Structure formats: C-alpha cells, structure tokens
C-alpha cells in the first residue's frame, strides 16, 4: 500500500503544474470566450451581461432586429475563407505528394538531407518567409521585374492583394505540415506490396488506386487537416498579401477585437472556427484512427 501511495504522490506532482496551468490559461479562457459569444456587445466596447444570440445570427446574415438589413457579407467572408483554405490544401497536397514519393525512393543519406531542408523553414521565422513574398509579388517586386525584363509584360501585373497571392503565401508557410505526414505514410508503405500488385498484373494506375492510396490515405488526411485548420483561421497572410480586398475570417476577428471593439461578435466568429476545427478532428479520429487500429 505504501508503494501505491508514493506512486500517487509522484503522479500528482508530475501532473499538477500542467493541469493547473492549462485549466487556468487554456480551458477557462476558451470557456469565457464561449460565454462572450452569447453576450450583447456594449455600446462603446465591452459587454452587457445579457443573453444575446444575434452574434451568431449576424454571421448567418440575419439582421439583429434593430439596425442592420439582411446581409450575407459575413457568410461570404466565411465562404471565402473556407474556399481559400481548401485551395491551399489542394495545392500543398499536389505539390507535396510527388516530392514525398521522390524523396522516399532516394538513398538514406540524401533522404535525410532533403527532409532536413524541408523542415528547416519550420524553424525560420514565419513573418520573414511571408515578407519574402511581399517582396516578390508587389507592383515593383521581383516577379514583375523579372517578367518585364523577359519582355513578357509592359505594365506591372496586379499580383498582390489577390486570392492567388494569399494562397501562395499560405502554401509557402504550410508546406511542411502537409509534407511530413504524407512522407511518413509513404515511408511506411511496403514496397513489396507494390511489386506484388504489379507482379499480379495490375496496371500502374490500378496499383496506385488499390495499393498505394489506401495505405497513404491516413497521412494525406492528417496533412490536409493540419493545413486546413491554420489556413482557415489565418489572418497574417491575408493581412500582408490580401490586403483589404481579400478579407478572411481571421481578419474579421482581428477587426472586431482591435478596431470595432465588438468582442462578442469576434468571439462568435472564433467559435465558428473552433466548430470547424472540432468537426475535422472528429472526422480524423473516426476515419483515420479507427481504420488504423482495425488494421
């Protein structure tokens, strides 16, 4: 019995700091935010302590009964955010898959070096990496200068402050998140299965569809979720590369908190982001983790 209580003491001591810390500074703040999203915004910032569901109504376009007309502007922003995030996911996936496949077939030494090269950006400042694209895409930027020098254009193109610019920026900073899960699932793929499939007469396409795809699917799904979630809530990339023309839900949240001072509405918008995140996590847990444990 004594040994048991000692064990409990040790466990308590080990878990106490992280439990207290995350309860106070993570769970409680999220709870307060959820509560805020249901409170009435005060006239000059702050909140009125009364239940108010119009924060969510407003996101869906309903007028709050007093001032606004029916307006789907927020739904549009939400839709645009989803669309841009989805395009970012597709782009990173298309870029990363062949590269991951290529690297997985290289000798170990080169492999490790290339993996290092792909993870290195993860360790370098995100703002610096985004800044590089500001330098490239703006009117007097590198891209326009290069195209002009090549004689392809005479007037600078409008590259900045477009949806494309935002997608490029997000693809650039989220590539490692897509690459690593895909790569590790391709690494795990048993190449003898591919050979067996070819040996049994399957075409390369059939082999890919029936053998390769099912076993790399968990990695692909994980990568997609890991890219989609931060893309959806991003506000730095649209801020720098999208400007006022490409507003995403993250910019909207920022505005509510730092300029419009409508915290409850901002909180409601955040709750929408959380809801999407939880939905995706649930999909991941039920589809991928379950499939994995059944194997």
């Amino acid at each position, binding site marked *: 019995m*004594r*040994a*048991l209580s*000692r064990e409990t003491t040790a466990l308590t001591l080990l878990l106490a700091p992280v439990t207290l810390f995350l309860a106070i500074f993570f769970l409680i703040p999220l709870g307060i935010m959820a509560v805020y999203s249901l409170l009435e915004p005060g006239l000059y910032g702050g909140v009125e302590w009364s239940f108010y569901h119009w924060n969510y109504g407003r996101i869906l376009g309903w007028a709050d009964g007093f001032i606004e007309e029916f307006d789907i502007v927020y739904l549009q922003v939400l839709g645009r955010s989803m669309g841009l995030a989805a395009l970012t996911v597709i782009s990173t996936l298309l870029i990363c898959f062949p590269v991951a496949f290529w690297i997985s077939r290289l000798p170990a030494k080169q492999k490790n070096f290339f993996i290092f090269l792909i993870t290195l950006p993860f360790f370098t400042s995100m703002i610096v990496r985004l800044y590089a694209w500001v330098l490239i895409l703006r009117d007097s930027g590198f891209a326009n200068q290069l195209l002009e020098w090549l004689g392809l254009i005479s007037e600078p193109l409008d590259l900045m402050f477009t949806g494309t610019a935002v997608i490029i920026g997000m693809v650039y900073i989220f590539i490692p998140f897509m690459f690593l899960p895909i790569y590790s699932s391709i690494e795990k793929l048993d190449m003898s299965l591919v050979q067996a499939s070819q040996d049994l007469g399957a075409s390369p396409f059939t082999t890919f569809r029936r053998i390769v795809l099912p076993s790399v699917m968990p990695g692909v799904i994980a990568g997609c979720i890991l890219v989609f979630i931060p893309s959806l809530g991003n506000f730095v990339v649209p801020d720098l590369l999208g400007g006022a023309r490409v507003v995403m839900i993250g910019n909207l949240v920022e505005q509510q908190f730092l300029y419009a001072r409508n915290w409850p509405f901002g909180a409601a918008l955040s709750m929408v982001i959380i809801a999407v995140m939880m939905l995706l996590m649930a999909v991941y847990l039920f589809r991928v983790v379950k499939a994995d444990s059944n194997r």
Partner: protein
Amino acid sequence: MSIAFSHNPASDYLRVRNAVRHFNTPEGGVVKALDGINLNIGQSEFITLLGPSGCGKTTLLKIIAGFERLDSGKITLDSQTLLELSAHRRPVNTVFQSYALFPHMSVGDNVGYGLEVAGVKKPERVQRIGEALEMVGLAGIEKRLPSQLSGGQQQRVALARAIVNRPKVLLLDEPLSALDRHLRMKMQIELKNLQTELGICFLFVTHDQEEALTMSDRIVVLNGGKVEQLGTPTEIYHRPASRFVADFIGESNVFEGKVVRFDDFGADVQCGELLIRTEDRNLITGSAVEVMLRPEQFTLLDSSTSAAGQQVLTATLEQAVFVGSDHQLVCRLASGQQISALVRGHCHHLQVGQPLQLAYSSADVHTIPAVF
C-alpha cells in the same frame, strides 16, 4: 495441486504462501496470473519456473523482485517478509530478458551501479567490478559501452551487474532467449557452474523445457497460475504429476483407461482395446487413470529379438523420420490412436503401412490420476 515434499532441510529459505494475483483484462475478463501458489525453495538451489506463456512464471518473478504487487499471500526470504519492501530495498537482483543495461554508462559503471548506490567506496567497488566481470569471463572491458558489445557479452554484463551485489536470490527472466542456440547451450552450462560457485539461490524463468532440464536442481511447472508439479528434472520427466506436465515436458504417449485388476506387483489398465501393465502399486480397481509412455521407452521388435519379460503393442507404421542418431516412428494403433516411438539404429528396411511390434517394460509405464 500436488506439492512435492523436498527433503532439503534448508528448503524454506524462500517461501511463497498462497500467492494470488489476478489481472483485469481490457475486455472485462479476469486473468488468474497466480492462483494460489505455494513454494519452498532452498538457500543454494537452482530453481526453474517452467511453463507456457501466460502461466504466471514471469509475474511470480516480478512479484519477488518487487515490480508487481500481490493480491493476497505471503512471501518470505530468509525469514524476512518481502512484500512490505519496495523493489530497491529487496536483497534480490534480476537479470532481465532484454538485459536492460544502462545505455549511457560504461560496462564498469553498469556493474558498479548497485554498489555505488549502496555506498560502497570506490577502491572496493573497482575490485568487486573486476571480480564480477572475471566471473562471467569478460575481464577488462570496464571502459566499453553496452552498445559496443555483442548480445552474448551484454548478457554476461547483465549477469555480472546482478551478482556483484551478492543477492540472496538471483532472479533470471528468460535471459537466454535472445541468444542463438549454440551460445545458449554454452551459457546454460556456465550459468549452472556460476550458481554452484556462488552458492546462492537462482530462480530462473523459462518456457524452454530443455533448458529447464539441463540446469535445474528442481523445476516448478506452472500452468494457469497454479503449480502443476515441483520436482527434480528426473522426477518431472519420468513421473509427471499431471497430463499437462507429461505433454509439456518432452514427447509422450498417453492412454486414457481404467484399472481392471491390481496385485502386489502392479496393475492392469484397460485403455480401449489395449491392456497395459504397470508396476504402479498404488492403483485400485475401477479408478480412471492415464498411462504414459515416452517414445524412447519403446523398442522395435523384429524376428531376431524376443520380447522376453516385455509387453508388446502392435501398430501400423505411418511415417519414419531420421533425426540424427535415432528414427522417430509415427505409428497408428488398431484403436486409431497415434503413437510416437524413438528407436535406435537402422530402420531403412521399414515401409510405411507395415505392421510393427513395439515392446515396452511395465516398469517404465507411469500412471497419472485422471482428472475429470
């Protein structure tokens, strides 16, 4: 179940009394890892805990080492109750299956760890590390790291690390299972010699019956958390206490039957159409028994040999396999039961389907009380 009584007066050095340990499985069931174990073990015995995986042998070892608790029961070592002591206070040491050497410490530091923790001063420590390594045949490798050693060497370091502390009992958890067959057989002999030299109790866990028969003073056969039999290797082999032991140790031919007649010299057991004579004098008419014969207890009769004083079975040859010095014959009796016989010498003339005369001595026939 049956507990063999040992005549060794010092055999209550390590005592296990009614040890019970049940585990709950994730599916909601209960695994009876130990289901009332009783053992008396002597001060300088080489004891092997033998059984199939899941029989509770490793659990018992872990409980003695202090890594696992007991639901109920009592364990004493040298008249001292063990269970109240946490693992680090127990006067026992373990050689782990995976060796569990400290990868970040040199061989010398590994071996000296227990001494250092116990506060043994450096000069003495260095000397004892040297002695221990010498005992296991690895003198002078103190400076090397475990990762620079072969599996066999790591195994010896693990052994040295345990014996250097002069434990009252050395616990060995399948320490030879990772070695190749040749090295394993060499280590079996070395371990036995080491134990004799040290004169301390070795408690050795294995699922390999050959290993158990080679090294042990006595063997504890465990099954389903219970002691099936405790006895010397010869007792276990020739006088198995249960059908399980008979099947688990070596190969055996077992016939189920009923005693039809007994006299002062033995009994006749009717096994289907077969009447088997045994010299077991503890049988009474009508009792259900199982009769066991080892394959090597049969001899093959041919025209030139006579069956004087022997019992004879007639069987049809189904397969003959050459296994080095002997032939293993798989035969079928008229009743349909398959039996196995190990016979010396040339058998090239034998043909599948041919009837054989297999002789055995009634003195070799061992009976096991049948359990229903």
